[in-house]
């Protein structure tokens, strides 16, 4: 039997090698370079050989491994299971430790500008993931156009702040409101759709918003984008080296030296607080009737109707609340960048957020954090490898789906238990 297995695995890995050669040969192996102002093809067969060998050998070991796993069937102890059991048991302590770490993070010795920027970006994705988790994870509505609400939030913040000069704290709820309204706007036509059909319509909605932003030049400045978006202030104290006449700034008020990092650290805490609010809200609302109705709707819509649950209102609230948090994140994005253009709101953003939610384990709040760290972290680690980043991203998704087909943390906790009231 062992010999048979090795023979089979060898055959399989040979086949894998051929597929890898067919795929990577043209993509990686043939590269055009400009020599003496002429484009010539420069073959890179060695790299191709390495990749093909890696795929073939890897496949061989996967075969051997899964064979061994089959032998061990009955004693469940894969790495993922150990991790998720650990997280289930110590969930509360880990969450507190993670929040504590996030709070002291800016004061860590290694936390320079680069790390802070990555941390802010990750936190933004975590917040978006938590927002989308309401729509996909709880209500089970596959929304591939979530970035549209992110864009609506960013543009409404930018437009209100530029044209009316309103402060961040006034524009933030307005941006959330606008995004929530767009959520309802999307919700109405898709009420009867489920699954694949819903995914297609939401995807189209995301593109529509992007194309609208691109072409409504009078309002959005189209592809030029909006510049000069006001930065947030610390309760009225701006972060500026040379403030306007008679305006007190953050560093003069607190008697500090001016340091551009002050603004970065403030932005970091801002997104941390926004993200934690999103999380607290989701955890709370999941235990309320509307949250339970979302999950019931995900499980069985017909049964919901037979119990008198209004599916229209339930779906619309999920869309609206999810979109609202997307809008909050969008206005944070706008104030952080000070410049936004439709380029920032392409489909790939939606895809990344959906991937974060799905890979994290539908409906799991901790799972969103883990998969963000994993996916966004990986993209950053591979930043120097340019386009190979996306290969690493795809690879990470494949790995998670092999080892944890239902997401990193798939276990669901009941929202209410016997003996515990409220």
């Amino acid at each position: 039997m062992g010999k048979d297995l090795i023979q089979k695995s060898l055959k399989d890995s040979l086949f894998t090698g051929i597929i890898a050669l067919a795929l990577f040969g043209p993509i990686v192996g043939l590269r055009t370079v400009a020599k003496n102002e002429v484009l010539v093809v420069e073959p890179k067969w060695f790299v191709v050989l390495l990749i093909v060998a890696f795929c073939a050998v890897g496949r061989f070991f996967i075969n051997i491994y899964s064979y061994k796993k089959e032998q061990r069937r009955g004693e469940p102890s894969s790495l993922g299971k150990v991790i998720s059991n650990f997280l289930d048991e110590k969930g509360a302590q880990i969450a507190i430790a993670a929040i504590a770490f996030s709070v002291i993070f800016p004061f860590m010795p290694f936390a320079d500008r680069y790390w802070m920027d990555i941390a802010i970006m990750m936190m933004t994705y975590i917040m978006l993931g938590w927002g989308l988790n309401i729509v996909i994870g709880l209500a089970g509505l596959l929304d591939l156009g979530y970035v549209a609400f992110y864009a609506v939030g960013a543009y409404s913040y930018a437009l209100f702040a530029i044209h009316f000069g309103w402060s961040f704290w006034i524009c933030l709820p307005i941006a959330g409101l606008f995004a929530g309204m767009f959520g309802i706007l999307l919700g109405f036509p898709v009420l009867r759709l489920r699954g694949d059909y819903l995914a297609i319509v939401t995807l189209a909605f995301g593109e529509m918003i992007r194309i609208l932003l691109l072409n409504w030049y009078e309002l959005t400045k189209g592809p030029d984008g909006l510049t000069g978006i006001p930065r947030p202030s610390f309760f009225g104290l701006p972060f500026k080296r040379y403030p306007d006449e008679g305006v007190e700034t953050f560093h003069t008020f607190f008697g500090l030296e001016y340091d551009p990092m002050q603004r970065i650290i403030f932005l970091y805490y801002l997104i941390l607080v926004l993200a934690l609010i999103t999380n607290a809200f989701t955890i709370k609302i999941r235990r309320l009737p509307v949250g339970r109705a979302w999950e019931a709707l995900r499980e069985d819509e017909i049964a919901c109707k037979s119990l008198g649950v209004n599916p229209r209102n339930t779906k619309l609230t999920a869309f609206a609340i999810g979109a609202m948090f997307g809008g909050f994140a969008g206005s944070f994005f706008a104030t952080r960048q000070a410049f936004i253009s439709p380029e920032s709101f392409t489909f790939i953003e939606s895809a990344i957020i959906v991937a974060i939610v799905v890979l994290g384990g539908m409906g799991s709040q901790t799972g969103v954090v883990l998969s963000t760290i994993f996916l966004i972290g990986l993209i950053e680690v591979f930043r120097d490898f340019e386009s190979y980043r996306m290969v690493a991203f795809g690879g990470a998704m494949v790995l998670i789906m092999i080892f944890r087909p239902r997401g990193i943390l798939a276990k669901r906790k009941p929202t209410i238990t016997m003996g515990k009231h409220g």
Partner: protein
Amino acid sequence: MSEKLLDVQNLTMKFGGLIAIDNLSFSAKKDHITSIIGPNGAGKTTVFNCLTGFYKATAGSMFLNKENNKMDLKKFSDFKVAQKAGVARTFQNIRLFPQMSVLENMMVAQHNKLMTASGFSILGLINSKSYLQKEKEAMEISKYWLDIIGLTNRADDNAGDLPYGDQRKLEIVRAMCIEPHLLCLDEPAAGLNAKESAELNKLLKFIKNDKKTGILLIEHDMSVVMGISDHVVVLNYGKKIFEGTAKETKNSPEVIEAYLGTED
């Protein structure tokens, strides 16, 4: 007391050229279990779907007598039949929320009441006392019903993990959580063994006698139908071919020919 709880007159349902229900009239009384029987494809489930708003009947009328208040069921669309008129139903192929716990299933059934109590989530978000009180009451109602079917100790397990017979019973008591006036059960005994069927009979009698809820029952298991029905309506090809008590039905030559068959 035997007022008409449900009064169906000349109900007709057509799907294109197919007449699924043809001019059907029957009524159900408040303290009765009314069974609808008939061969496969006779239109039994279609009657349920018309009553509970899943289909819009082509013609005819359906009235529910709710505390001397005559309600036209045709005016309500899908979820409103349960919400406003108080008609609950179960399904031929069990429709629980399998990934949610048994208790959560019971709580979803009390959604409308709790939604109002939670001030459409606003009072709930701030942990208002009145909402917590209502939630506690809803849990007690859930516990009351779970005690009756003996599932209290499994309240925190996923509904999908329960044995088949328990899932059937859970679906029935979940429907009872909306405090219906009329409970429509679509083949509740399908797939149950003799012992489970006997328990089901007991549960249905309890609902009828103690809860004063009228029951409309579709069933193929004659031990259930004949054991508990007060009134039987027999359908064949969408038409009513017989109506009477269980005993009369058993001996009716038309019913024997169309459905029951002879013991030879």
